[in-house]
């Protein structure tokens, strides 16, 4: 509780006790000055204890020519109630005090609940490191401001501490918990030479890290900046409420004025009828109390903030409330293939003999991979690396000699004294070898040994383990259409699409072609439907920014993706897309529930108040009650299912 809140609580308790005493007092006129208008002075004193700040704000508002706000509503309503009690000589001032008291209780609860949820959401996103350890010349650790650490210096991260700055492990092994960044709960093992991103928590061993960036440029700073900025992009619902409040409050005030004046005036004109001024003024005041718009004004931004917080807890950064709103309207999801649905790493998917048939002979398989791996052992090409991985053994370099890399063709080498050629069809052709044309989807590596064709290896880009599940989850989340775009060959694309259950595929696209396709799909959709493009952010920045909503994957460490996208998935798991959509839908549902509930209850009470059925007590309960319900409902947006 803040100091302000504590003071408010004390005022509420004091005023409540005094009100109870006044209400239970058998004869107030027995007190000194108690005979003045049936104890008016005592009631006024309690009223001021609980409501002086509201009155002050209302007067300030009038001075600043900003008359119509909730303080003004409360001042008019309570002052009016006092006035009526004086006019009727009833001495019933309790109502005015009660209205002010309950209003303040509501405000107090609101500020407490909002403050508490604000802090818990912020702490979800709190990954800011406070210091960095630097080893001094004497070998002691010194804590310094991460801002002061220069690029290339060595920092020490003890177990349990956050990595403050991006860098490369210079010494030590440990496992890192990156869940604050990625939502991924499995720890990541690191050893010297590995990159580490700031914001992860060092769990087991002492690490010495050579920094590669300044603090301000490090992942953790970028993310914090993004999350903090996200709260400032207002959604259309929020704008709607701001505009709504601007018109609503004056409208309500004039409606109340009309309610106080018109019916009595009409009654005056009808002979034989009393104007009943006091009754209608009382109804007008009740009307004013009911109409206070606080529930809406507070609960909508709180819901969005809670939704953004919930998303960031599962490793999805949403750049603003407006984005969360767009995300909830996504009907078409366009996905890039490589790196998004597939791992972007080549693996051996098949091995065929000279007749293009699957080899079952383990001996022959091993022989082909061995030849290919040995020939490619000096190359840094991704395909060579995949072949070396498939070989699974240490390469004995003494067996290989005369390696010749033929650009665009492949490699020839002498292995165990035999001439070996490893490469594409063109290489086989240029060597005059008889080879078979493989129909499989993927990259084909042909192998020839000692002047004879030996067979070929099919390398494919592996589909991510969660990819098919993700596409199904998208459909479950209410996405009508999933589309896959790729620059790869049609045969590869169709095979992947069939395995995943994607609705549409467009293959052999250049980057510009992807933009065109996205534009085409956007033109085809309805007015309230949105299209999201998901890419790994490496070379699809133009598409990311062109789509209604750009979702970048693997945000950690990729500044370009963070810049270009509206939503950043911190890790590579495509399942997060459906989760993010789910969270956005839930948030929007809560926002709409609150709008409907608050306006509905208010409208009902307004009508009851106008006909004199609802009195001021019911009015203030409606106001405070609706607000409490709306705030509690808004906090619901923060909760996410784990896993």
């Amino acid at each position, binding site marked *: 509780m803040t100091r302000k809140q504590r003071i408010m609580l004390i005022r509420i308790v004091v005023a409540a006790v005094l009100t109870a005493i006044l209400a239970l007092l058998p004869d107030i006129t027995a007190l000194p000055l108690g005979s003045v208008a049936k104890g008016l002075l005592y009631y006024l004193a309690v009223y001021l204890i609980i409501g002086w700040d509201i009155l002050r704000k209302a007067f300030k508002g009038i001075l*600043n020519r*900003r008359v119509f706000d909730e303080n003004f509503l409360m001042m008019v309503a309570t002052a009016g109630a006092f006035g009526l009690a004086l006019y009727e000589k009833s001495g019933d001032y309790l109502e005015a005090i009660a209205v002010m008291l309950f209003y303040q209780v509501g405000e107090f609860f609101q500020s407490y609940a909002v403050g508490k949820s604000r802090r818990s*959401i912020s702490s979800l996103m709190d990954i800011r490191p406070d210091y960095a350890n630097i080893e001094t010349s004497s070998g002691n650790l010194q804590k310094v401001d991460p801002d002061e650490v220069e690029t290339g210096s060595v920092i020490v991260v003890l177990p349990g501490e956050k990595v403050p700055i991006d860098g490369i492990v210079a010494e030590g092994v440990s496992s890192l918990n990156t869940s604050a960044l990625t939502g991924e709960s499995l720890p990541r093992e690191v050893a010297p030479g590995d990159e580490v991103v700031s914001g992860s928590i060092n769990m087991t061993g002492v690490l010495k890290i050579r920094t590669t960036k300044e603090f301000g440029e490090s992942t953790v700073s970028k993310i914090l900046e993004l999350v903090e900025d996200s*709260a*400032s992009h207002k959604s259309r619902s929020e704008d709607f409420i701001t505009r709504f409040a601007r018109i609503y409050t004056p409208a309500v005030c004039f409606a109340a004025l009309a309610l106080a004046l018109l019916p009595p005036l009409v009654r005056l004109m009808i002979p034989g009828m009393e104007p009943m001024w006091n009754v209608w003024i009382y109804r007008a005041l009740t009307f004013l109390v009911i109409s206070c718009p606080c529930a809406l*004004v507070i609960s909508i*931004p709180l819901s969005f903030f809670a939704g953004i917080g919930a998303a960031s807890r599962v490793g999805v950064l949403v750049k603003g409330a407006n984005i969360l709103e767009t995300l909830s309207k996504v009907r078409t999801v366009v996905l890039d293939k490589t790196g998004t649905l597939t791992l972007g790493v080549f693996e051996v998917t098949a091995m065929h003999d000279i007749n293009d048939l699957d080899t079952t002979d383990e001996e022959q398989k091993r022989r082909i991979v061995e030849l290919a791996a040995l020939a490619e052992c000096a190359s840094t090409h991704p395909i060579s690396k995949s072949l070396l991985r498939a070989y699974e053994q240490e390469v004995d370099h003494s067996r290989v000699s005369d390696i010749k890399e033929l650009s665009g063709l492949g490699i020839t080498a002498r292995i165990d004294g035999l001439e070996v050629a490893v490469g594409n069809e063109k290489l086989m052709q240029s060597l005059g070898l008889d080879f078979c044309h493989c129909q499989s989807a993927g990259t084909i590596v042909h192998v020839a040994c000692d002047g004879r064709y030996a067979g070929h290896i099919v390398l494919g880009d592996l589909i991510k383990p969660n990819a098919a599940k993700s596409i199904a989850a998208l459909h479950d989340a209410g996405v009508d259409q999933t589309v896959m775009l790729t620059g790869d060959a049609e045969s590869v694309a169709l095979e992947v699409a069939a395995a995943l259950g994607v609705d549409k595929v467009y293959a052999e696209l250049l980057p510009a072609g992807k933009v065109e396709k996205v534009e085409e799909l956007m033109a085809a959709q309805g007015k309230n439907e949105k299209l999201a493009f998901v890419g790994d952010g490496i070379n699809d920045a133009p598409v990311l920014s062109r789509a209604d909503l750009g979702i970048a994957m693997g945000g950690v460490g990729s500044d370009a993706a963070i810049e270009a996208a509206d939503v950043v998935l911190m890790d590579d798991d495509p399942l997060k897309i459906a989760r993010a959509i789910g969270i956005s839908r839930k948030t929007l549902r809560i926002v709409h529930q609150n709008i409907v509930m608050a306006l509905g209850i208010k409208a009902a009470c307004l009508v009851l108040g106008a006909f004199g059925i609802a009195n001021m007590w019911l009015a203030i309960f409606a106001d405070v009650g609706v607000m409490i319900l709306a705030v509690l409902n808004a906090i619901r947006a923060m909760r996410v299912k784990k896993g």
Partner: protein
Amino acid sequence: MKKSYNIDVDCANCANLVETEVKKIAGVKDANVVFMTQKMKIEFEEGADPDAVMKDVLKAAKKVEPDFEIL
């Protein structure tokens, strides 16, 4: 030049009001007041003295929202 300040503001609507007022002040190019994070970001005009501008900012903010504080 951009600066970020920690603030104390009571409600979302108050933050909006303060933002509108602060944007009008000479030397302020753009301003952003966020209730949820309790932060105010101000982009100053080229050549403006932030300290002098901030005095006006606080004054203007206090006028519309007496409880507003810059921490």
